[in-house]
């Protein structure tokens, strides 16, 4: 990014080649229509180009790119909310790859809390670290970790309904035993 800021075209091409796919996936999984996802991906890079003069390497380039992408996504959602008639929900995003699996996973994700879903997607699809997610979401790292755990457990329950009760019991057992272990350690 610093090389691009210095005027290097190959540096930008490298940046584009590395992040174009992930950014497209970021928008595609959160919005309806691949053309809109493509447009927003391009807008993200255009914003990077226009803001290159005032770029400061305070965080990872990846975090910087996803922060721009999240701002654009929020603006897009606001716009969709304004344009859509009241009571009408935006259709869910559909991808061409493995439509059955996508539908199955998407429905499970839809049942999660908004914030937890976003954290889970940033971790699983964008492969961001806890610290990066915390910075993007303006949350403490521990909150990100606990919400991520909650969302994974909830998603597991949604994806495997038949095993849901058994797994939840196992998890509770582990958690309770940890608490008891700590209590005993303190007593000793």
């Amino acid at each position, binding site marked *: 990014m610093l090389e691009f800021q210095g005027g290097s075209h190959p540096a930008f091409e490298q940046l584009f080649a590395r992040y*174009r796919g992930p950014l497209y996936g970021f928008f595609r999984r959160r919005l309806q229509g691949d053309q809109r996802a493509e447009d927003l991906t391009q807008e993200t890079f255009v914003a990077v180009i226009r803001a*290159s003069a005032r770029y400061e390497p305070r965080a990872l380039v990846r975090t910087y790119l996803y922060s721009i992408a999240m701002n654009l996504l929020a603006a897009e959602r606001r716009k969709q909310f304004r344009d859509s008639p009241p009571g009408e929900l935006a259709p869910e995003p559909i991808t061409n790859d*493995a439509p059955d699996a996508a539908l199955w996973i998407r429905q499970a994700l839809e049942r999660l809390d908004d914030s937890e879903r976003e954290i889970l997607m940033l971790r699983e*699809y964008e492969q961001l670290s*806890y610290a990066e997610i915390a910075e993007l979401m303006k949350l403490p790292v521990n909150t990100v970790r606990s919400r991520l755990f909650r969302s994974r457990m909830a998603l597991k329950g949604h994806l495997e309904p038949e095993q849901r009760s058994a*797994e939840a019991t196992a*998890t509770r057992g*582990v958690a309770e035993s940890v608490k008891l272990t700590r209590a005993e350690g303190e007593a000793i």
Partner: protein
Amino acid sequence: MNKISHPIEPEELMAYLDGELAANRASATAAHLGECVECQGLVTSLRSVSQNLKAWKAERTESTIPPAIATALAENELVSRSVIPARQRPRRAFLGQRWPVVAWVGGVAAILLLAAVSVPNLLRSRITNSVLSKPTADVLVVAPEAPSAMPMNGRQVDRIEQFAKLQAAPPVSSSAPQSDRTTVGNNLPANGPMIIRTAQLSLITKEFDKARANLEGILKRHRGYVGELKAGGSTGSGRTLTATLRVPADQLDATLTEVKTLGRVESESQSGQDVTSQYVDLQARLSNARNTEQQLTDLLRNRTGKLSDVLEVEQELDRVRGEIEQMEAERKNMSNQVSYATLNATIAEDYKAQLQVVPPSTSTRLGNAAVEGYRTMADGIVSLALFLLSTGPSLLLWGVVLFLPARLVWKKVRRSFAS
């Protein structure tokens, strides 16, 4: 389930899988995972969730730069190479896509500012024009029938000239004001420039009563008079006398010399304001106005036209006479100020405090303290009431305006602390 065998929290297991656990905890977790079947089960579940999520693929692999980005790159390169000073570029970048909004807001603000400045000026100029146009109209009614060589004041002649040019009428002679000015020039005071003299004198004297009596004697000798006199202070403290004395201008120096002998001079200053040009100008205007008055009187005496014309001439005559009286009073005042100089004298008593042998009694001091306390309390209450009355409405208004934002901020802060 054995409680001793789970020293690792489930969240730590997840962080271990994500590579987010600290090194010491990671080794402990790895060791525990090798032994604990339940934790292995949880890890398997977490891995299966991640594996399932990977089934939703949406990424693209093509990496050709689209035209929109290529255009933005080219523009960025142009901007960075253009002659725009470097310090302006960050501002443009700062504005970014919002510059149309900023431009609109700035434009509207500029228009409002321009309107706020120009509307009062426009109204003021219109009012001034309407006031000035009335006498002009009066003159224009009379002028065509008046003799062409009728002397008028400068302003009237200028207006008639402008009107005549506009109407292609025969030009009006402008020699009259010049002749008037020549006449005025002959009325210049023969004894040189006209100067209003003012002097300030501050004295300290040990014999205050004697100095005051002597001051009156000095004024009588130099044919002066007291414009204003104030004396203050009690006998037990230093007294002060402040007087504005008027003495003939040619007697000012002699008066000052004698007044200085009344005590020790603390400060002295003299100033003179040259009003010759103002006086000459006033004389010229006065002369013009008198000529106009004479012409209007002649016109009124010889006129045999319509009644409305006669009434208009009479109104103009009244106005000119009013101006003449005003200018005459101004001229007399100026002459008076020139012929009589002003001396502002301040005489202070050189007071030496006497030793107070008998101090005030305790009861007196207590009484005084009680009175002072009551007065302070009353002043405090009145000050508080004044403060509340003067700032209360503003505070109330701002409180109402800022209540909702402050509440939102407080809720947000509380929520962030809670999370």
